[in-house]
């Protein structure tokens, strides 16, 4: 009895130790980001490798906000990511519902083609996309980016949403229709509230994807007026030096919206991701 309890205690101890180790491993780069961002430039190379600088400064933050175009990049990123998340989630929800609930001709083909789009590396199609967007005036514009991001996120997001809709028993809709609801009313009052976790998970997934996307943001938009923040980060790398302090400060600032967004949806998210995991 006693030894069983001790064995169980030991089990949990190891359990938490393993988790703590993993969390430390995953979060250490973020810690380093924060540490470098508050280290004065003159201490960065002189102090060697230390966990915490001997004195801290917010000078990098001040200069990032006041003397660089970072606030503009930041704004651009928010616009692009939020719009992409919203559009992708709406389209994916509609598509996912259709795939989950209706049988129609060519369904298998559409699903197959959507899967194929996920298979090749994006680098291959940067040039054709540029050629397509340029005559339409969609290069050097935020709408162009939103369009491209949405197009590339919708297939996977649709699969994700479909698995959430699949998880909702069809009988709930049937019960609603027998109760006197149209298909749309059943969707609005029964299915939608139950899919919120799925919508949150999908929106979160798309948002972070768009937020950190570099390739298209760099290739399609050359004007700094429409650059997003990952592109902006590159501007801290000059030909002869890298301004690590400012770069890291900008990085920390860029984390804020993502963290805020996830904090907002996290309650739905845990539920949503696990539900999707079981089904998908």
């Amino acid at each position, binding site marked *: 009895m006693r030894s069983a309890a001790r064995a169980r205690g030991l089990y949990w101890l190891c359990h938490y130790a393993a988790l703590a180790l993993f969390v430390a491993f995953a979060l250490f780069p973020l810690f380093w980001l924060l540490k470098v961002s508050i280290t004065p430039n003159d201490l960065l190379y002189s102090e060697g490798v230390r966990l915490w600088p001997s004195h801290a400064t917010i000078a990098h933050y001040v200069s990032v906000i006041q003397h660089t175009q970072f606030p503009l990049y930041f704004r651009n990123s928010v616009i692009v990511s939020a719009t992409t998340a919203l559009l992708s989630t709406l389209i994916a929800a509609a598509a996912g519902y259709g795939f989950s609930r209706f049988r129609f001709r060519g369904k298998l083909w559409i699903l197959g083609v959507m899967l194929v789009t996920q298979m090749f590396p994006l680098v291959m199609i940067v040039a054709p996309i540029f050629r397509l967007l340029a005559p339409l005036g969609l290069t050097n514009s935020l709408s162009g980016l939103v369009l491209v991001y949405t197009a590339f996120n919708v297939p996977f997001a649709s699969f994700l949403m479909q698995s959430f809709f699949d998880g909702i*028993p069809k*009988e*709930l809709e*049937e*019960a*609603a*229709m*027998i*109760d*006197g*609801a*149209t298909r749309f*009313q059943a969707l609005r*009052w*029964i299915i939608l*509230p*139950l899919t919120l976790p799925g919508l949150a998970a999908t929106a979160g997934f798309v948002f972070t994807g768009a937020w950190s996307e570099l390739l298209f943001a760099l290739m399609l938009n050359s004007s700094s007026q429409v650059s997003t923040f990952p592109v902006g980060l590159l501007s801290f790398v000059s030909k002869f030096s890298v301004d690590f302090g400012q770069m890291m400060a900008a990085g920390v600032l860029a984390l804020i919206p993502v963290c805020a967004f996830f904090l907002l949806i996290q309650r739905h998210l845990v539920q949503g991701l696990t539900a999707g995991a079981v089904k998908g």
Partner: protein
Amino acid sequence: MAAISIRALRKSYGDVPVLRGIDLEIRDGEFVVLVGPSGCGKSTLLRLIAGLEEITSGEIRIGERVINQLPAKDRDLAMVFQSYALYPHMTVRENMSFSLKLRRMPAAQIDAAVAGASAKLGLQSLMERRPRALSGGQKQRVAMGRALVRDPKAFLFDEPLSNLDARLREQMRYEIRRLQRDLGTTSIYVTHDQIEAMTMADRIVAMNDGLAQQIGAPAELYDNPSNLFVAGFIGSPAINFLDAVLLEGPGGALVMVGSERLGTVPWPQGLPADRRVTVGLRPERIVMGPASAGAPAQIDLLEPMGLGTVIHLNLAGQILKLFTTDRLQEHCRGIVGLCVQSADILLFDPRSGLRLRAA
């Protein structure tokens, strides 16, 4: 409330026929049970009536109106699902008032209707709970309540009791029947459980293979089955089927099981040329006496059930069951004589499965 009339109804999924021509007239206020093994099409028939599936051909009327093309929401039927299908994000009260809200009923009327239905089902103390916080029996009641709040043309039940334990099932069986009697609402009830069918139905539709095998009152299906399927499906312990031959005898046909004489029956119509038949014998209609008094059979095993005893017997190499409420010695064995009334011997054509009736 309304009568429901079904004519030449067919349903196929692609090339696979599920319903192969159903005709059924359900009177206003009648409690009809569709019973059959899984895959017989009974649930499909119910879903066609509900409007959840499209019919392939035929006609369904509710009252005077043909509703083939009418969407489910406009049919004004209420349905209780096997899984209950309660809306998980709504409280019991919201679950029950959802249909009334969709009809834009004034709030005061909704409250009154919900209060009335919840009182009938004893749900008052659960009104603010969500389905996840309810037991199986309570969910079942809420599903009933959701059907009761509005006054639908008919209730449809799709195996509503199959997720409950035996005792609760017995109680809900009684409650559903009593509610239906008090409300007088036309009801169609699907089950695979022949006891539910027997105890609840005004009329039973015994289904198999996409066809209604027999439609009638429970006692009629039990006493007077029209084919082997109905005879075998209805009744527990199940009916005995024995291979027999009819021989010329004084005053009719001698029913011979092997070399043993079971009884004399009037000559039936449509007898196969070789005079081979399948005999159906209800276990409780066989009387056991001393070996000399009837067809001699060897006792194989006793199954005491409390209410009575099922006796497994061997008659001329064929196995049969006998049910008796007599108290028997536990180690009763040996040879006994079996006697059967002529009227209790049901004859079937072994090839077509159809009942052979006296000329």
